[in-house]
């Protein structure tokens, strides 16, 4: 490097006539800095989506990728198979149940964390643990404690509360699989809501509460008239993001139940995965992917309406 001596490297470089070129040097350098990100996005987002659209118009066997033009037949098939509508419905149940529960638990944790004076460090550590711990570990522990052979929650549910029989595996029962998936997911994912809302809570100036106190407001009135209105915006964003994430959640469902028993926990992502690897119908799976992508796109549009990023950009420049 010519810059080792601390001397300017510009005179030593090959001369590029920036003044004569139609673009400015800064523009080239600026675009150069973000180019790697753009390449990654094209490779991981644009290309796969385009590929999925193209593949969804073909009949493809997963292991023998010989493409046969099928037109819109895959989409007709998707909309006609009963598993699609069933999976869509279960996906919505899972999404709504998870999001509501996570929102409730997450907000509660944020309010407690915000007002607590002792043990803050310990609580924060617990919250971060749930965030950092891999989903597979949560699943392995859940599989262990709900196992009929020596699982502590299975035993408690059967003997203390009579929720299920002594020999049944709750994660393999039609009645309980979906509910338990929602509960186990909440343990891991409620902290996202906490993290988002806590930042907003911390940003409310204390003088608002002091003024309300002087005016004789009680705690409920302060919560209703100061805290809640300030939280509404971020809560909308969180609800939207959590809904999208839970609708597309694949890992925890596959690890815990593989979509079973029967189809009781098969949501759209699980259906797409099974279509690739069990039914070997790669084209059809891509059609399901495209349907899920359209859902994402609709959410993205709403997201931008709610959470205007250009506003965000302006505050930083």
């Amino acid at each position, binding site marked *: 490097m010519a810059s080792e001596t601390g001397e300017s490297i510009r005179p030593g470089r090959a001369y590029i006539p920036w003044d004569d070129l139609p673009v400015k040097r*800064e523009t080239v350098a600026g675009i150069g800095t973000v180019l790697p990100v753009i390449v990654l996005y094209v490779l991981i987002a644009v290309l796969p989506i385009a590929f999925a659209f193209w593949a969804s118009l073909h009949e493809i066997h997963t292991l023998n990728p010989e493409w046969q033009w099928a037109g819109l037949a895959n989409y007709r098939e998707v909309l006609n198979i009963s598993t699609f509508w069933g999976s869509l419905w279960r996906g919505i149940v899972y999404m709504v149940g998870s999001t509501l529960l996570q929102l409730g638990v997450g907000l509660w944790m944020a309010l407690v964390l915000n*007002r607590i004076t002792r043990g803050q460090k310990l609580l924060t550590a617990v919250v971060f643990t749930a965030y950092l711990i891999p989903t597979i570990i949560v699943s392995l522990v859940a599989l*262990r404690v709900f196992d009929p052979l020596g699982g502590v929650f299975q035993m408690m549910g059967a003997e203390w509360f009579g929720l299920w029989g002594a020999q049944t595996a709750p994660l393999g029962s039609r009645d309980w699989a979906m509910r338990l998936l929602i509960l186990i997911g909440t343990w891991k994912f409620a902290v996202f809501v906490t993290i988002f809302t806590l930042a907003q809570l911390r940003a409310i100036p204390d003088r608002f509460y002091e003024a309300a106190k002087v005016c004789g407001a009680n705690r409920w009135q302060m919560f209703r008239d100061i805290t809640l209105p300030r939280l509404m915006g971020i809560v909308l964003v969180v609800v939207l993001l959590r809904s*999208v994430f839970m609708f597309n959640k694949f*890992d925890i469902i596959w690890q815990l139940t593989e979509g079973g028993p029967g189809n009781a926990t098969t949501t759209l992502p699980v259906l797409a995965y099974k279509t690739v690897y069990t039914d070997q119908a790669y084209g059809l799976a891509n059609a399901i992917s495209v349907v899920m992508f359209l859902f994402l796109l609709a959410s993205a549009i709403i997201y931008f309406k709610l959470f205007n990023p250009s506003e965000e950009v302006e505050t930083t420049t």
Partner: protein
Amino acid sequence: MSQSEPPGGVFGLSYDGETRVIEALKLISTAIIVLVGAWPIYWMTQLAFTEYEAVEDSVTAFPTPDIFTLGNFTVLTQPEMYTYMFNTVVVAIGTIVTVVLVSLLAGYGLARLEFPQKENFARILLVGYLFSPIVIGIPLYQIWQNIGLLGTRFGLIIALSAISMPFAVWLMWKYIMTIPEAHEEAAWVDGASRWRGFRDVIIPQCRPAIIAAALFAFALAWNDFTFAQILLPQTDTTTFAPGILRAMGQAQFLPDAYLMAISLAMTLPPLLFAYFMQSYLLKGFQVRAL
């Protein structure tokens, strides 16, 4: 200052009574959150130190001396388990390095350089939050197969890096905005080039942001299941999450106590980060880039 008539509280309680109720509720809530949050980790740890026959047969809450054992940890020396963990570590390190390098560069460009479409770039960046591994993974399977990246750790690192980008770039961008440009100008006056200023002035000051971005990239890579399951189909190159799930289905002898032992080993790095790097994690969350 004595207030004889404090403001009326909820349910007709006096203000002081209300304070006491709230304090009690806070204490109970804290206890519940800590208990529920820490319980699975305690349970996993105690099962990892209990003999596997005892784990299979009955419910034990604590490894008393007669059932205590360290034998479960022999699972870590099994060659395929070792491979899974090694692959996870390689993927995590690869993702961290890629994410830090790319996001530092992009963050600097966004913070310091003027170029057209900058605002639209920020907009597109945020779309990245909505990337879903399952929607992208299924088409990516065939694309990677065609260009020979299927089953390679490199292919997985690229996918995971792209998923981490929106957060990391946003974090770097906002962090570099807080560094006064005068520091760099001083270097330029002394004859440093833009690159030299970036390397010797910006990067050293970005240390907290770099650590935060690295932590979040680590969390993502360590946690990933969907991408690895789809993009690393062969058993010998896969990472821990899909590998252990396949081993559960195929292995002839893999008792739950062994699973808990290896889970504990995989949980330790994130647990240590959660305790010792809290301030960096908080910094990351504060920019609201998640």
